[in-house]
């Protein structure tokens, strides 16, 4: 059966290309809405700035303790910041009543999860880079090894966003989700935060890449497990 939905790949005979296109379309649409709105983006940026600033003030003006605290502060800021962001991924859909329309689209439902995840990643990564730069400025975090640092950011943020997107979808219709989400997320993503902090610390202290790659491997394993489990569970949980 063919359902003519304008601009959407048709359900009949949908191949891998169709699904990928759906994912990208959804992510780009959300990204456009978010960039046009600006309020959300700006509030998260301001949150990063204020949080890093307060932490820098609290941990004292000496360079050594600041330098030591930098990776931890960076990842805690990212964790809190992305919780703020993940509720936004589904908040608009629920407000406008379009979540049901998405769920009614023929075919599997995994693409909604991947679309939202891609949207999160596209927003979070630039924000994370900005946070990294702020941490470098305020906490003397050395940036010489920019590429390994970026890799750590990508792996850590992906691990975080994969669970955050899943839970944001699950709790989208719930009233107290802003309170509940961090509670659920933080306990689940502690391994990710731990591995990211260790990897960043190692990079800041100038350890050889061979020693840090253990943490990267761990991060990669977590990312894969969380991503697969979330993608498999998402359709089951969103039905009905």
């Amino acid at each position, binding site marked *: 059966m063919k359902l003519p939905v304008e601009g959407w790949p048709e359900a009949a005979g949908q191949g891998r290309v169709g699904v990928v296109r759906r994912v990208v379309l959804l992510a780009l649409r959300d990204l456009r809405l978010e960039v046009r709105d600006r309020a959300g983006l700006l509030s998260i940026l301001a949150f990063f700035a204020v949080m890093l600033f307060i932490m820098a003030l609290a941990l004292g003006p000496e360079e050594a303790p600041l330098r030591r605290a930098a990776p931890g502060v960076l990842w805690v800021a990212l964790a809190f910041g992305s919780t703020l962001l993940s509720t936004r991924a589904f908040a608009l859909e629920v407000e406008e009543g379009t979540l049901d329309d998405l769920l009614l689209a023929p075919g599997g439902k995994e693409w909604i999860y991947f679309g939202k995840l891609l949207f999160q990643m596209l927003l979070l990564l630039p924000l994370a880079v900005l946070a990294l730069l702020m941490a470098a400025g305020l906490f003397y975090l050395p940036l010489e090894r920019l590429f390994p640092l970026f890799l750590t950011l990508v792996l850590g943020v992906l691990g975080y966003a994969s*669970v955050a997107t*899943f839970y944001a979808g699950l709790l989208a219709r719930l009233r107290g989700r802003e309170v509940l989400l961090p509670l659920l997320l933080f306990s689940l993503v502690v391994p990710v935060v731990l591995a990211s902090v260790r990897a960043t610390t190692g990079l800041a202290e100038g350890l050889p890449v061979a020693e840090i790659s253990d943490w990267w491997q761990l991060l990669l394993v977590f990312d894969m497990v969380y991503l697969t489990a979330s993608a498999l569970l998402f359709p089951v*949980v969103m039905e009905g």
Partner: protein
Amino acid sequence: MLKVAQPDRPDALTWVFLGLGLLLLPVGLYLALSAPPDVNQGYLVRIMYLHVPGAWLGYLAFFVTFLYSLLYLFRQDPRYDRVASSSAEIGLVFMGLALVTGMLWARPTWGVYWTWEPRLTTTAILFAVYVGYFLLRGAIEDPELRRKAAAAVGILGFINVPISYMSVKWWRSLHQTQSIDLTTGKIHMDPAMLQALLFNLLVFTLLYLGFVRFRSLLAALEARKEEA
């Protein structure tokens, strides 16, 4: 949904598990207290007879939660959810026991109650995940969404169990490695100690089975009352 007659009282099997477990508990304690002291740790080793079964049963309980959460998601029968939450509850108790006995052992051995080494950290995370599980259950009013969300935590949270179990091998931590290694099947333990440990493990398993069956029944009664 399949409508099954729900009993008002625990069935015979539940009573057998509970009765045998409670009856054998003093025997297990006697065996633990009469087991020979360790070469290195002396009498302190006897905490192990509570610590190891507690930790194992905690892992087992969370595994059962994982299994029944999966079953719930695919069959949508509230009974599975009740077993999952009951098992998580009992698991928290056993895990708590393992944590407390571990701390009591650590103080004279390592000099501190708590240290942030991998096994302890991963176990604390595990504990936090299942505390979160119950906070979540308490926070959602819609029963169906509550069951679904809880099932998701039950499944995703279980990922930490193998990590916690393997942490002593992967990171070569301060905590001792397994005396009975499930991955290789090797046993590094004196037969007299092993006997006492296995006996306590049996007692704890019986208690666990009894508790879960009992708690699931309670949950069923609660659910029935909520509906009425």
